[in-house]
């Protein structure tokens, strides 16, 4: 059973800034989880604890029941995959193929296993025809997918995406949705930081809202987006269609045009 648990997690940066102020969070299973909140809320600081890039100032982080401090980040890499926000910080080899093979080679996997994964994952991230291109010659979107592919190649049970939708076009977003669905199907836990509320409501059942180093709300997406005062406190704006639905006085929280239309119909029927 995959699980990430934090207990009274506190983190203080060298500058003295207290980025996390006692976070208690328990994430389990294969339902993808979205972490949202304003810039500086502590989202990235929190997820950087899940593979030990940052170590708790106080409190604990347990990955599948094991304290994160017991292993180095490199040792956690096979269990917890982490895709950084800026792809330029992650790509350091001459070809996409080498980037994708790097992680599994570090883990000492068999060549046949690697070749098999390369075929599957390069297809999933849409880079199967660019394997011999230098990563710096990829477009911004492709670079991002190259870093995602590089992490997925290690087949970690837990995958963390930091702002995957940043700078993505429609096709990129669709591919991301595909990847998140695939991960869930393969029984893996996907944790995603995002500012794109449309993307969040479309792909995640569970949403964690952070604000000033604390978890403000943690729950089902309908439940979270039906609390306007809490969202306002965390400076998160729900998707426009949700606002329309609420302004029109709908009882349900809707995230799509179809959802809005259905809710309107149902409400009319019940009024008749």
């Amino acid at each position, binding site marked *: 059973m995959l699980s990430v648990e934090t207990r009274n997690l506190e983190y203080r940066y060298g500058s003295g800034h207290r980025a996390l102020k006692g976070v208690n969070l328990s994430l389990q299973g294969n339902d993808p989880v979205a972490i949202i909140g304003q810039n500086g809320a502590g989202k990235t600081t929190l997820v950087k604890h899940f593979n030990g*890039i940052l170590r708790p100032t106080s409190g604990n982080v347990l990955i599948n029941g094991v304290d994160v401090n017991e292993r180095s980040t490199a040792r956690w890499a096979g269990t917890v995959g982490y895709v950084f926000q800026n792809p330029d910080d992650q790509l350091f080899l001459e070809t996409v193929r080498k980037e994708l093979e790097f992680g599994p080679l570090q883990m000492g996997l068999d060549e046949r296993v690697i070749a098999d994964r390369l075929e599957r994952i390069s297809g999933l991230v849409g880079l199967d025809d660019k394997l011999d291109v230098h990563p710096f010659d990829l477009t911004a979107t492709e670079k991002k997918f190259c870093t995602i592919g590089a992490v997925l190649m*290690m087949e970690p049970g837990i995958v963390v995406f930091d702002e995957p939708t940043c700078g993505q076009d429609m096709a990129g977003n669709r591919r991301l949705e595909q990847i998140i669905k695939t991960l869930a199907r393969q029984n893996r836990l996907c944790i995603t930081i995002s500012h794109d509320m449309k993307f969040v409501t479309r792909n995640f059942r569970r949403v964690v809202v952070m604000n000033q180093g604390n978890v403000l709300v943690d729950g089902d997406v309908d439940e979270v987006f039906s609390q306007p005062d809490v969202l306002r406190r965390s400076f998160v704006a729900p998707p426009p269609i949700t606002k329309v639905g609420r302004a029109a006085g709908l009882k349900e929280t809707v995230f799509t045009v179809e959802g809005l239309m259905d809710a309107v119909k149902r409400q009319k029927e019940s009024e008749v």
Partner: protein
Amino acid sequence: MAHALNSFHSLGTPLERMHPITKIVAVLALGLSALLWPDFTLGAALVLVLVVVAFLSKLGHPFMKLILGFGVPVAVMLLFIQGGYSSRNVTIIADWGFVRFGLEGIEHAAKLVTTLLVFLGSFYLMNKTTYAGRLVAALTQVGVSSKIGYLILASLNVVPQMQLRLAVIQQAQNARGLDTQGGLVARLKAYIPILGPVVLSSLTDAQERGMTLETRGFGIDGVRRTSYVQVHARRADFVVGCGLLLFLIMVAVLSVMWHCGIIPLPVLIGGSR
């Protein structure tokens, strides 16, 4: 989160409030004085003065680390080379068989080391107590072109920027299963793949910053710019600056006079004409 990109951290000391130009004058005046003076005594005295100034500026510890860390190995090396093999050597003071140490060479080495330390130490103090933006603002105020100013600013910032970037790339490598802790071999092996992206991305960074500056009108000619950072010269800065220049002139005159044999200097250890 990156706050200050250059190595400057405010400590609120008098040296920090000093006008950047005065500090540049100080580096040149002190360094040149040590260089011009016929023997190593002035240099040694100036190093002591710099140590006192460093402690007064709350930089004593790192300053001593620099002076000893650089000074001791260089001194040992130069004393051996100059002392053992300098062509000036006449007075032999020690004979180890394979090498014979001459007084003249040792004195020359001592002068080289103290002069180097005066330049290095005063430059270090200037760098550590001057916010780079203020330095460049002061330079442009006295007429240095803003392009040169930017060049100075960019080169002062490049190292801390690379360090930051290196740290992030290292995190990313760890996250992909590469151990960068471990022993020396593991570290070296981890460093090699990092170098490529660090250098490449600094180049693209520089290019992008250049383009950004152009789109914001940095290249406009013939306009008097207003500066965001204002540097005001105080009376004290002027007095200290003049004092330093006077000191340099005095040292120069005395050295020349000694050189021409007009005056003998009272304490002179092994000065060579």
